[in-house]
């Protein structure tokens, strides 16, 4: 089994590396967006799927990561690697502040306060013309040569995303990740075995915010622009839907969900502007028939078969 997984992962990575060789430029761009959106959804899932924390406004950290990187490149003239680390760090710092305020509340109360605070950040970005460019956003961010081409941006996104997903996977499979699942399942019980529930939630939020920020930073590399819409609350709900669609209780579910959603939007919107209608229909069917999400269903099916065969 281990060997099979290794071979499968290697083949998948080789295929991903070869993509720009035979795909037209536009689709290389789409592939980059698929990757970084997958990272965004997976980072949210650490909070919501593993921690049971209703992080309703996650794209605030995506946006701050993007703006942080863009501002470092345009205003401070920082080298690209520095800018790409500064964005996520800013997102993690914001996540810490928002987390400190929200983390004592639970479930929906947490979610509502989180949306409020996130919207506050959005308003600041939306209105502060002299600093963030207001509703125009920031465009044409200068990038160094290796990142300027579509293929270069793609390889950078691929490398960073794979690294981050590996790190997130390790975190999810660590004692911390397991404890987080315990906190999700039963916070009262967790306290009674000596777990500091509030602190675990806070750490999870900061980690999720950081990796959300990395996704935002990658968006600058791929698209060269940042705009307020990427941190408007409706986009947060879209990312939440990605987690639901793919399956919150599996590690790769949100990635599957986000890829499905991004590709659907790209390909269906070619034929009709009512792509939302098609998405809504698919989502309704998934929720009714596959409550564990697409991947959750497949995992159960696959494992079930294996058990039957044994």
């Amino acid at each position, binding site marked *: 089994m281990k060997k099979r997984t290794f071979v499968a992962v290697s083949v998948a990575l080789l295929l991903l590396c070869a993509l720009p060789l035979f795909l037209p430029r536009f689709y290389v761009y789409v592939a980059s967006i698929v990757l970084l959106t997958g990272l965004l959804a997976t980072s949210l899932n650490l909070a919501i799927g593993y921690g049971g924390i209703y992080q309703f406004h996650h794209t605030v950290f995506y946006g701050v990561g993007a703006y942080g990187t863009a501002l470092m490149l345009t205003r401070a003239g920082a080298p690209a690697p520095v800018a790409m680390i500064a964005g996520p760090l800013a997102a993690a710092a914001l996540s810490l502040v928002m987390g400190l305020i929200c983390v004592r509340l639970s479930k929906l109360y947490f979610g509502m306060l989180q949306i409020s605070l996130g919207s506050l950040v959005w308003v600041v970005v939306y209105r502060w013309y002299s600093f963030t460019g207001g509703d125009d956003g920031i465009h044409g961010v200068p990038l160094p040569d290796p990142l300027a081409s579509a293929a270069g941006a793609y390889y950078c996104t691929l490398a960073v995303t794979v690294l981050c997903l590996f790190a997130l996977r390790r975190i999810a499979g660590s*004692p911390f990740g397991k404890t987080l699942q315990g906190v999700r399942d039963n916070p009262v019980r967790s306290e009674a075995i000596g777990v500091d529930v509030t602190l675990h939630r806070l750490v999870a939020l900061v980690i999720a915010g950081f990796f959300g920020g990395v996704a935002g930073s990658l968006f600058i590399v791929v698209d060269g622009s940042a705009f307020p819409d990427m941190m408007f609350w409706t986009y947060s709900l879209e990312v939440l839907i990605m987690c639901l669609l793919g399956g919150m209780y599996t590690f790769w579910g949100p990635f599957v969900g986000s890829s499905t959603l991004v590709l659907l939007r790209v390909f269906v919107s070619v034929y009709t502007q009512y792509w939302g209608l098609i998405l809504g229909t698919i989502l309704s069917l998934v929720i009714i028939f596959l409550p564990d999400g697409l991947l959750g269903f497949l995992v159960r099916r696959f494992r079930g078969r294996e058990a039957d065969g044994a």
Partner: protein
Amino acid sequence: MLRVESVVKSFGGFKAVNGANLHVGKGEIVAVIGPNGAGKTTLFHLITGHLAPDSGRILFKGRDLGGLPPHLICRKGITRSFQVVNIFPQLTVFENVQIAVLSRERKTFDIFSKVEGMAAEEVDRILRNVGLHGRRDVRSDLLSHGDQKVLEIAVALSGKPELIRLIRKLSEEFGLTILFCEHDMGLVFEIAQRVMVMVRGGTVVQGSCDEVRANREVQDAYLGGTA
């Protein structure tokens, strides 16, 4: 080991616990009884730190527990069981116990190691002791209700508690100090070595089963014909 000294807790003018006194020695099994609304649950919440007393002191091994949050009180060695089954439903039997062991060893913030197989030896031993080893990889919400209760006890045990509300058998096998609350008087007098009677938030009497049974006030207030 545990001393509760004239503790008061009121909720908006209503004194749920009003000057309760209790002491539990090491290895003792003590029952708290009293009519509904006497403040038993509030008292337990005060001891486990889910509520803070308005006045009075709660001492554990001579040290004041006042104001400590539940997870720190747990680390001092007090573990509670719950009235309803209280486990981590989406985790496997093994993981349920594993979390408790990791928490005791303060490893829950470790994000660099692989949790798989961690503390496996101890977890397996605990599961073997309670007879759940055969189901170690089953998701715990798929267990029968009885097995879930056993699992809950296993989780509580994994914290190596010195004080736990459990039954006599466990006390003998694991050398635990137990404080519990039970309405079935037959059971209380069978299991407990000493009994504390609460009425209207205060301690009426505290003593051996015979002393409590013989107490006129208790008979009037609570036991009626059953004793």
